[in-house]
């Protein structure tokens, strides 16, 4: 049998190339993803080691409202074995850009400690100096020696600093994600408004025992005491994509790619062995056993698998090696020295490729053993099309029903992770069902899809549709390979689109405006000058503008805000009168009324600046952005003349672009550049960008699966063209032009593509929508029709492209072949 195998490789080797390419891509993908996740892990380890080398014990608060105090710091310094201890002040700051306005992306403000990794220059020596994270220095264009302005937290006044150094922040949690500006403890306290420390960094010998002693000295409290290493690990994990999650995700996609490759390989072997029925029967006549035939076929697939996997692994590693340094992880580019290629990676990807190839050929090989020796005597006839077993149909229907049930149960139940798993399971089961049912349903679907093709293209169209489904098993396998990629693409885009729309809707419900302007400082003394409201009210593009004014007051001992709201947005009256609020009248939010135990008609007493004011509750009000204690604007003006605004909300008509509306808001605030402007566009954009990144990544990975599937289409068509050489020649003899023959093959490919597009988008939409619904019960299921249309059309076009090579081959057939005996 070795001779037969070798002869087979010689004769059919070129036909196996395409199957090999499918394996190659799949294996390259596995190798590449393994290298990526190993490298990410190595990179995390690198930053963890770096961080741990600079601190030995960390005390970190677990509750932002109760920061660590200087008392805690003193107690730690007194602990035996502590060499040094420093408090870390950390919080949001407002940095001004070169235009004097707050920048849109704000770095985190922090105080410099031993943990700080100074890459260049030096740490701030005085309150007037700062250190910038490398990426922040780049983003804000503030090199060492330049000046930078940061707002005082309370007053909102700008403070000048000089940049004296650059810091590395890779793997340092928030700092890695948002960048940072490092200051002295005093400067950090003023700019962040933090009264205490979020962490205390301790140096000393033997971290483990030091940790215990520090813990004992502090006693119980809302904080964690950990070693520098543990802390660095936890921080690294929150510095962006968790390498473990990323690795799992990537490997999942790699497996999908291999699965698709498996379909392609299976089909190739099936078709090739169909063509060799005669030859195999002859071998059986000569005394070859079933086992020998089986082994000869497996040996062929193993050869293809080994060669393709070797090439694929090399390709994957090479691609990862050259592209990884281009990726920014945790705020810094990956140095090439971190790229990690382990022997395990090589072994796993080689094995995966070989196993997938051999496993995919087991089915066709078993079918080949069933060739009866008598077939050798029958001469060449088209291989009989396998009958579809009824067991298969029953199994398929059962799996599909189970899959649907599972998804329905998941959607009906509440909860998060468990139902999401159920949807996944349902999708998997349904897909298996479709795999089994494929050969049964592909015919009818293709005929429906093919109807317009037949109509438009006449004879070539009719022949194309008939050819596409003449071997239902083959057609189904070809289509399914495509369906996998299309289903995943559609599913993911349905999920992300739904989540984006839900966030949009949520944002507009909570903030009924396009822009919210707030004062630069945080105290009641910091307000927005009234000219901003005035300017916005007279701007023609502005559709709605509302301002809120507040003064600090007390009721009994508790501090409250006494507010008034004026402008387009009006509170919803939940109970009580609807007449305008007069002097001495007050409206309360229901929750505030409940706290005060006040009902309509009751009187409440407030103290403002030591003066008592008595108010009569006349109504309860709700809605956004309605403050809790509201009096009429006229009376407010009488009581607190020329009081500035504490919030201005601006809405624009829907035909105003974000750029136009921002320009209007910036003009209105030109004299008060330090006010904070938050745009809901920005919020929406950020959410969309985050999800968009995920979609883009998933999309790129699935494109690979699609490419493998398209190779499958090209492969099936090429082999079909070879099988039908005499038919093609006959058609030419009967008067079909070369173009007609090409049209016929294009149409056949198109039928595959459109059927796959339809099945894939239906599956993807249904299961994507279920998943979105399960992830979030309030989700607005938003089907991205544009994406679906593009997917279906794209699948059609791509398959037509895949048919170009096979159709060229078909037209090169000499017409005289029709007369040959073969």
């Amino acid at each position: 049998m070795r001779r037969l195998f070798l002869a087979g490789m010689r004769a059919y080797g070129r036909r196996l190339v395409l199957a090999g390419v499918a394996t190659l891509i799949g294996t390259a993908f596995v190798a590449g993803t393994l290298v990526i996740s190993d490298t990410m892990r190595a990179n995390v380890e690198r930053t963890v080691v770096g961080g741990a080398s600079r601190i030995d014990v960390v005390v970190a608060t677990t509750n932002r409202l109760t920061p660590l105090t200087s008392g805690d710091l003193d107690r730690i310094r007194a602990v035996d074995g502590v060499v040094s201890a420093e408090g870390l002040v950390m919080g949001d700051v407002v940095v001004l850009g070169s235009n004097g306005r707050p920048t849109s992306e704000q770095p985190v403000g922090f105080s410099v400690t031993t943990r700080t990794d100074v890459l260049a220059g030096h740490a701030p020596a005085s309150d007037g100096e700062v250190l910038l994270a490398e990426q922040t220095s780049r983003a804000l264009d503030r090199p060492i020696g330049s000046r930078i302005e940061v707002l005082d937290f309370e007053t909102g006044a700008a403070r000048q600093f000089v940049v004296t150094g650059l810091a590395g922040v890779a793997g340092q949690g928030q700092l890695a994600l948002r960048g940072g500006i490092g200051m002295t403890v005093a400067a950090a306290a003023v700019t962040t408004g933090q009264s205490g420390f979020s962490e205390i960094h301790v140096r000393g010998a033997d971290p483990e025992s030091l940790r215990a002693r520090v813990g004992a000295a502090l006693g119980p409290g809302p904080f964690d005491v950990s070693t520098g290493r543990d802390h660095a690990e936890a921080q690294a994990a929150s510095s962006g994509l968790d390498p473990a999650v990323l690795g799992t995700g990537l490997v999942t996609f790699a497996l999908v790619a291999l699965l698709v490759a498996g379909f392609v390989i299976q089909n190739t072997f099936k078709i090739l062995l169909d063509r060799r029925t005669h030859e195999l029967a002859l071998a059986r006549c000569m005394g070859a056993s079933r086992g020998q035939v089986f082994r000869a076929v497996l040996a062929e697939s193993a050869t293809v698998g080994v060669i393709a996997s070797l090439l694929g692994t090399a390709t994957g590693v090479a691609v990862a090696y050259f592209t990884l340094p281009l990726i920014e992880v945790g705020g810094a580019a990956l140095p090439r020295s971190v790229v990690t290629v382990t022997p395990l990676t090589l072994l796993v990807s080689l094995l995966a490729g070989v196993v997938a190839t051999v496993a995919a050929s087991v089915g066709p090989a078993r079918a080949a053993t069933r060739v009866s020796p008598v077939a050798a005597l029958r001469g060449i006839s088209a291989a009989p099309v396998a009958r579809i077993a009824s067991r298969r149909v029953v199994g398929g229907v059962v799996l599909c029903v189970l899959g649907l049930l599972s998804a329905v149960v998941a959607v009906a139940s509440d909860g998060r992770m468990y139902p999401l798993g159920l949807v996944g399971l349902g999708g998997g089961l349904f897909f298996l069902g479709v795999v089994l049912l494929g050969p049964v349903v592909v015919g009818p679907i293709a005929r429906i899809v093919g109807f317009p093709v037949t109509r438009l293209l006449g004879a070539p169209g009719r022949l194309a549709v008939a050819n596409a489904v003449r071997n239902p098993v083959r057609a189904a396998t070809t289509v399914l390979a495509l369906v996998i990629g299309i289903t995943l693409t559609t599913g993911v885009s349905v999920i992300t689109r739904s989540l984006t729309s839900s966030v949009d809707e949520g944002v507009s419900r909570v903030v009924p405006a396009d822009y919210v302007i707030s004062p630069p400082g945080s105290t009641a003394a910091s307000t927005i000058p009234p000219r901003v409201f005035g300017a916005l009210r007279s701007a023609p593009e502005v559709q709605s503008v509302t301002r809120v004014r507040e003064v600090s007051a007390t009721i009994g001992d508790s501090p409250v805000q006494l507010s008034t709201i004026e402008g387009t947005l009006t509170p919803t009256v939940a109970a009580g009168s609807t007449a305008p609020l007069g002097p001495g009248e007050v409206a309360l939010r229901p929750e505030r009324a409940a706290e005060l135990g006040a009902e309509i008609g009751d009187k409440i007493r407030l103290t403002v600046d030591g003066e008592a004011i008595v108010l009569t509750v006349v109504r309860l009000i709700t809605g956004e952005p309605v403050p809790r204690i509201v009096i009429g604007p006229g009376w407010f003006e009488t009581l607190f003349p020329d009081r500035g605004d504490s919030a201005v909300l601006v809405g624009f008509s829907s035909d105003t672009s974000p750029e136009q509306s921002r320009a209007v808001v910036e003009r209105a605030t030109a004299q008060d550049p330090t006010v904070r402007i938050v745009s809901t566009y920005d919020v929406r954009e950020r959410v969309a960008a985050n999800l968009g990144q995920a979609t883009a990544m998933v999309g790129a990975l699935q494109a690979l699966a699609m490419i493998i599937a398209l190779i499958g289409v090209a492969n099936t068509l090429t082999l079909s063209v070879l099988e039908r050489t005499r038919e093609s020649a006959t058609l030419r003899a009967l008067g079909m032009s070369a173009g007609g023959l090409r049209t016929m093959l294009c149409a056949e490919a198109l039928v595959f593509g459109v059927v796959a597009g339809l099945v894939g988008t239906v599956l993807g939409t249904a299961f994507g929508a279920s998943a979105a619904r399960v992830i979030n019960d309030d989700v607005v299921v938003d089907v991205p029709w544009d994406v679906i249309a593009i997917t279906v059309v794209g699948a059609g076009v791509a398959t037509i492209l895949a048919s170009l090579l096979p159709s060229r081959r078909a037209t090169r057939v000499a017409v005289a072949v029709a007369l040959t005996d073969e």
Partner: protein
Amino acid sequence: MGGRIAVRAKHVRKMYGAGESAVAALRGVDLDLHEGSFTAIMGPSGSGKSTLLQCLAGLDRVTDGAVEVAGQLLSDMDDRGLTALRRVHVGFIFQNFNLMPTLTAEENIRLPAEIANHEIDHTKFDQVVDRLGLRSRLGHRPSEMSGGQQQRVAVARALVNRPPIVFADEPTGNLDSNSRTDLLEFLQICVREFGQTLVMVTHDAFAASYAERVVFLRDGSLVHEQSQPTPDEVMDTMKKLEG
């Protein structure tokens, strides 16, 4: 006889391969076939009879010489021209029937018209189908029919469009003797009733005896010709040629 020339071959030479390994399949064949004639081309295996048919039908290019079909010089035509010629002037009957396995008998018969975008002549369709006894088989696929039935479908396919010239390559090669006689009688009727020109390659003396004229090929040259021979006369000539 007389009439116009339907197919004309002039000094047709056909070489396969190049250089020293070149093999001459046809060594200067001259042949005129009149409109409405029924000609059989005979010869031993390897005599070049199939090559001659392919060259006459424009399926293959000649190395030297010229072929005219319906007054048009084939060597002047590109692929497009040849395709157009096939659509209008030429029909084929193959030894292996060459029906499209995915189409029914009726669809197979209508295929050439559909390919050429021609309207099919319904009277002609009915006439041919009834004459060949295919009425009850129209909805069947090739795999559901016997060899004789399949060949009759193939003949119907070649005739329904009334091509002036029909080329048949060993049309009886895969048929049993009953089907063979039926087919040959029908081919004769085609020539007589429908006025079509029929060129048939065969190595079967019985089949050749149905032709008005039998030409004999040996080693790529025309060596003999008989008019309305009996099967025995054909057989004798063949024996001489092979011997």
